[in-house]
């Protein structure tokens, strides 16, 4: 386990090298935003280039960059771990820009994660209890639709139904906000929740679908085991057997797939935040793309890659902890 944690460090370094090499290929690299500005002359560019060390060979640039990021060197302003420099598209440091947007993204991801986990696992269990029944068929079909749905189009359709027209159901007219985090700056829990509903459903769909399919097949495996038959022979009722004995074992492989879903969650958040004008990191990233804000793109990609590596590790640890038969050398 310690070895796995140690292995994550060279992996992250390798990721940073490759990302740095790719992003430096952009015309102007970190200077791209200045190249379009008519008030900045070629001489200014040359001076900036020299000051920022961009006339150094690329490996020197990388060494300087990584030294600043891990906090070994100051960038003239500050010196700390995770110093990704100055974001030209936001006129603040990359760290400040990302930290400012992080709560909104965490709120969205967290609610989508919780919703998909609870509903997905519930769907999976219901389908597995009566395999090949009409309920199972319904859940499986739903899962196929969820996996095949283009996220951005699903978002547009929900907006069309709930925000543009509103839906009349059970004698109520249901209309939901389709953009932003809230209507006013004053904190209002009802307003916040209303704004959260559509983005959460959109971001959840894919994970709901995959996790329910996964829980279903995992639960079907468990139901065939000897210890489940033993539990039934003891005279326990079906619900107790499934919830007490079955679920714990069936969820073990689900833990892995859930932790490995993180890259998908990040990608989904980029699209969802763009469509719902959600003030999170995904939208920050899309805005930075248009102006090619080198420091911010680099910072964002490093951060999400770090999270992915970290959650892979968590998945390994959790799996070994839940299932003592699994051993890592």
């Amino acid at each position, binding site marked *: 386990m310690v070895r796995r944690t140690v292995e994550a460090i060279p992996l992250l370094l*390798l990721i940073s090298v490759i990302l740095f090499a*790719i992003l430096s290929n952009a015309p102007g690299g970190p200077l791209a935003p200045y190249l379009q500005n008519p008030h900045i002359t070629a001489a200014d560019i040359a001076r900036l280039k020299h000051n920022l060390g961009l006339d150094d060979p690329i490996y020197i640039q990388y060494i300087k960059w990584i030294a600043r990021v891990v906090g070994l060197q100051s960038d003239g302003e500050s010196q700390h771990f995770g110093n990704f420099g100055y974001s030209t598209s936001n006129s603040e440091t990359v760290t400040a820009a990302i930290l400012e947007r992080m709560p909104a993204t965490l709120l969205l991801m967290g609610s989508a994660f919780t919703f998909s986990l609870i509903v997905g696992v519930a769907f999976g269990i219901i389908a597995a209890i009566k395999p090949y029944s009409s309920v199972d068929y319904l859940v499986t079909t739903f899962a196929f639709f969820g996996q095949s749905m283009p*996220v951005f189009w699903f978002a547009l359709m929900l*907006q069309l139904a709930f925000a*543009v027209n509103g839906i009349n159901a059970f004698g109520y007219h249901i209309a939901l906000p389709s953009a932003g985090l809230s209507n006013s700056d004053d904190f209002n829990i009802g307003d916040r929740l209303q704004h959260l509903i559509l983005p959460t459903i959109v971001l959840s769909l894919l994970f709901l679908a995959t996790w329910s399919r996964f829980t279903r097949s995992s639960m079907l495996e468990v139901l065939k085991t000897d210890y489940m038959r033993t539990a039934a022979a003891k005279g326990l009722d079906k619900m107790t057997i499934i919830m007490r004995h079955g679920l714990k074992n069936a969820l073990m492989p689900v833990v892995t797939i859930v932790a490995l879903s993180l890259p998908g969650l990040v990608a989904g958040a980029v*699209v969802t935040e763009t469509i719902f004008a959600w003030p999170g990191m995904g939208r920050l990233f899309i805005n930075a793309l248009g102006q090619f804000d080198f420091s911010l793109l680099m910072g964002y990609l490093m951060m999400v890659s770090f999270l992915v590596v970290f959650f892979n590790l968590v998945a390994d640890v959790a799996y070994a902890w839940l299932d003592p038969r699994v051993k890592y050398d």
Partner: protein
Amino acid sequence: MATTTLPPGGLAITADDDFQLERHGVWKRLRRHKPAIVGAFVIAFMVLIAALAHVLPLHDPNAIDNAWSGTPLAPGVAGHFLGTDEVGRDLLARLIYGAQISLTVALFAVIMELTIGTVVGAIAGYYGGWVDYWLMRLTDVFLSIPLLPLLLVLTAIVSATSTKAALNFGTIVIIIGGLSWPSLARLVRASFLSLREKEFTEAARALGNRDGRIIFRHLLPNAVAPIIVQGTLEIANVIILESTLSFLGFGIQPPTASWGNMLANAQSNMSNAPWVAILPGLCILVTVLAVNYLGDGMRDALDPKLK
């Protein structure tokens, strides 16, 4: 060898007769999988329509109708069966030409992905040692960076380097195909790791075959089942990826129609012309659903143990 059951290692070795028999068994199982057959017909229909786009009596997909005056024309108006988009271009024609783009991007990107993924996975699994170690670290890197943001950065670099128009068919194929191979490489590596220990590999080596021949003629045919399944499912993934890139403005560029970029401006006209927003997405959903059902059926048919 029986016709209905597969040997533990997958398909038969290289003897062509056995391979034929196995294929019969696979075909029989696939035919019994009804959603897969429906999926296959839907895909065949889409491909046929897309391929015949130039022959069908369609409007010019990029021509703006004279009757257009700022808002999309409704279905049926001025000879537009499905109406027009937000700048007065025939929607049906754009959907069909869009199908052409979206489907060919998916096909070529997946061919590229399969080629790279298979070669990398085969070399890593067959040779093992430090070759394997470094190739797998490389796949780890690309599996750890979320794919969509990475694709977006690359397409943004291309459009910043020259013009947006440089984001054409070929560039999108190369960027998607060039980055989506790692999970396939892992899959192929896993089968090669076990296949290289098999007796027939030993025999092929003892006969003095070159490594290249052993890899492609002796081992690859035995690893082909999961590659076909994964390749099919990847077509679905790539259709979604390409449409997402195009929707966000970093994929296929207008005026060339793709199902994704047709939705890029749909949000602004949603209240007065919902069909502009509904139809392209419906095409994506139906196609991807069909491909996923076909892939699922093929998985059941090719290897009943994989599930």
